[in-house]
């Protein structure tokens, strides 16, 4: 499988994407490059090495490290990683080519140090988290991952028909008068929804993926491979077709509610006709940045911490230390019991 490592035009050391400057950085000679500079030097200065593909696309495959040449087995959705041996960034470009090429990307905005600090801050106050989870080494294991998503743009067309009433009442002398007006109401037009987000990776943790949302989808950029340099990336393994029905239903419901909102100033409204239907939909494949940390509990339960790599929003499921919970239980129950007992004996 083709793989690529971006190298410094000056010193041939690997280049990584830098969330702080939104540019590229050579840790060896401390040079920084913008995207444009890198693009202009593409093909000449950028060292990309291609190894022969072994195995089919979409399955676990071997690739050879462009830096050290080691043969490395990649999981079936891995699109970017670091070489196990030489720790240089490796992008499995073969997994992101052709129809598998993402349209959009949100480059990392939150630096690793910031993510680590946020995690330390978050976990510090959590007394019931087992001590190992708080350790420095765990924080070090914080990984920046580009997760694959589907962004759907929809156009819903059609209209609603309704019968509505408007009721007024007033008093005159000894009588109360009630006036009911009957209306026939019609609305028609189009409703557009942009960037309905869907997960595009089967093995993603649903809660994690939903927890870190939303991403500011209007700030996406055109996808380019170098953004992945220095990070992990997962290629999609869920087809847009699988979401077609779901997205259509959702867009339809949203559209109906929005159109219904325009039928106002009535006392009662009864929808009698609905011709709303999904007229157009367009799916775009995008990679979104997430800092993640997973922690396997003693019983195999997977806990995770995630931080939105664009907005910094934090989400996580924390492991609970049962001994510490036991202490809490005792700390609450024992004095309470003694107090009750004391009350019984003294009163």
């Amino acid at each position, binding site marked *: 499988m083709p793989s690529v490592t971006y190298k410094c035009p000056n010193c041939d050391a690997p280049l990584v994407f830098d969330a702080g400057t939104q540019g590229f950085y050579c840790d060896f000679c401390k040079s920084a490059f913008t995207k444009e500079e890198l693009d202009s030097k593409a093909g000449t200065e950028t060292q990309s090495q291609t190894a022969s593909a072994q195995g089919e696309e979409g399955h676990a495959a071997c690739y050879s490290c462009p830096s050290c040449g080691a043969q490395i087995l990649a999981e079936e959705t891995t699109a970017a990683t670091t070489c196990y041996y030489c720790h240089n960034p490796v992008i499995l470009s073969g997994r992101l080519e052709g129809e598998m090429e993402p349209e959009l990307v949100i480059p990392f905005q939150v630096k690793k140090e910031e993510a680590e600090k946020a995690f330390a801050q978050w976990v510090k106050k*959590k007394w*019931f*988290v087992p001590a190992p989870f708080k350790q420095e080494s765990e924080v070090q294991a914080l990984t920046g991952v580009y997760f694959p998503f589907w962004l759907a743009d929809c156009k819903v067309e059609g*209209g609603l028909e309704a019968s*509505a009433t408007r009721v007024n009442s007033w*008093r005159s002398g*000894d*009588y*109360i*008068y*009630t*006036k*009911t*007006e*009957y*209306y*026939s*109401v*019609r*609305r028609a*037009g*189009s*409703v*557009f*929804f*942009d*960037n*309905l*987000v869907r997960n595009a990776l089967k093995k993603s943790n649903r*809660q994690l993926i*939903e*927890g870190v949302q*939303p991403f500011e989808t209007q700030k996406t950029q055109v996808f380019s491979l170098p953004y992945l340099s220095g990070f992990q990336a997962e290629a999609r393994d869920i087809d847009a077709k699988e979401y077609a029905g779901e997205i259509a239903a*959702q867009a339809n419901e*949203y*559209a109906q*509610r*929005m*159109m219904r909102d*325009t039928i106002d100033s009535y006392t009662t409204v009864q929808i009698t006709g609905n011709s709303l239907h999904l007229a157009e939909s367009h799916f775009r494949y995008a990679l979104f940045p997430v800092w993640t940390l997973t922690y396997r509990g003693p019983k195999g339960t997977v806990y995770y911490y995630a931080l939105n790599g664009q907005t910094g*929003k*934090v*989400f*996580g*499921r*924390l492991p*609970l230390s049962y001994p510490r*919970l036991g202490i*809490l*239980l005792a*700390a*609450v*129950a024992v004095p*309470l*019991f003694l107090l*009750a*007992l004391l009350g*019984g*004996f003294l*009163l």
Partner: protein
Amino acid sequence: MTKRICGLSLLLVFLLALLPGVLAAGADTQQRVFDFAALLTESEAAALEEEIAALSGELGVDLAVATTDDNPQSAQEYADDFYDAHGFGVGGDGTGALLLIDMENREYYISTKGQMISRLTDSRIDNILDEMEPDMKAGDYSQAIAIFLDQVRGYVANDPPALPQAGEFDRVFDGAGIFSDGQPAVLQSRIDALCAQKGIDLAVVTADYVGEMTAREYAQQFYQAQGMGKDGALLLLDMDHRDVYIATFGQMASILSGSALDETVAAVIADAEAGGYYQAALTFLSKTEPLVEKAQLRAERTSPGRILLYAGGSVLVGLLVCLLVMARYRSRGKGYTYPFRENGKLELTCREDRFLSERIDRRYSPPPPPPSSGGGHGGGGGSFGGGSSTHTSHSGSTHGGGGRGF
């Protein structure tokens, strides 16, 4: 001469006492009258000897009389030594009594031993000595000894004391007759009330003679004889020993114990010493009542069920707190929902609100009459039912009817 005889006989008795086997026979001599001071005539002594022998047999105790005019010791020491030296007494404990007339100290003394100690209480001995006093002073020793024997017979023959029988009141027994009319009834009613409410049996007993029993034994026997409940207490005013005793049974033994018991006894004694026996009994009841109440309340609060309840409740609260913590740790942040109203874009090509018709309903509903004022009278009538609301349709015709929302 008499001194020598006395000394010799004492020596003889002493030597005899040293001989094992001889001692077992006790007083090998039947002599019980030792008139060393020669206060009696020979015939008087002989008659006395006979009388004592008869009385001793009758009462089952050993009685003796001694006189002396040569006693360097106290009368008590002389009498006790003399009694022991002669091996007087019946049974293993040497039950008996000796009357000593000590002319040297001009004292008369009654020494008791064994069961006679409890039968001839101090107050009784005082009584006996009182009775004897005139004759002693008059020098009529024979008569004084006769009174002594008579008194002893009187006290000992009546043993054992009969337990008071249940009379009008089954929880108040005034054996000593120290309560005045009406007082036992008040005590009884208070005890009954307490008994009914708390299930604790109480009794007040007065006695002027408890025999050889200790106050505790007497109280216990009495308690059992009356068939009182298993949890209870009994106040015994022992007028004989001028003693106050509170016997406790069953649960009362733990309720009325330690400092609470000491306090109650002290309060009762304080009243009794002031002569207020009835007040003492009332004090006993009023001190006991709150103790029982408190103990039962505590027992209820500290019953195993309650403790289990406390434990369960505490653990439950603890678990609740733990669950709260667990919920907080399980996830942070809410699931994401697409903000469709903000993100969606609506373009209406048609917005039509067509008026179809209207109808007007009229309902009779007179406003509430203003509140009437002043003393004027008003009146009036009203129709009920039958009225119909009508309305006019677009075509101009009148319709009736009604509807209701649902």
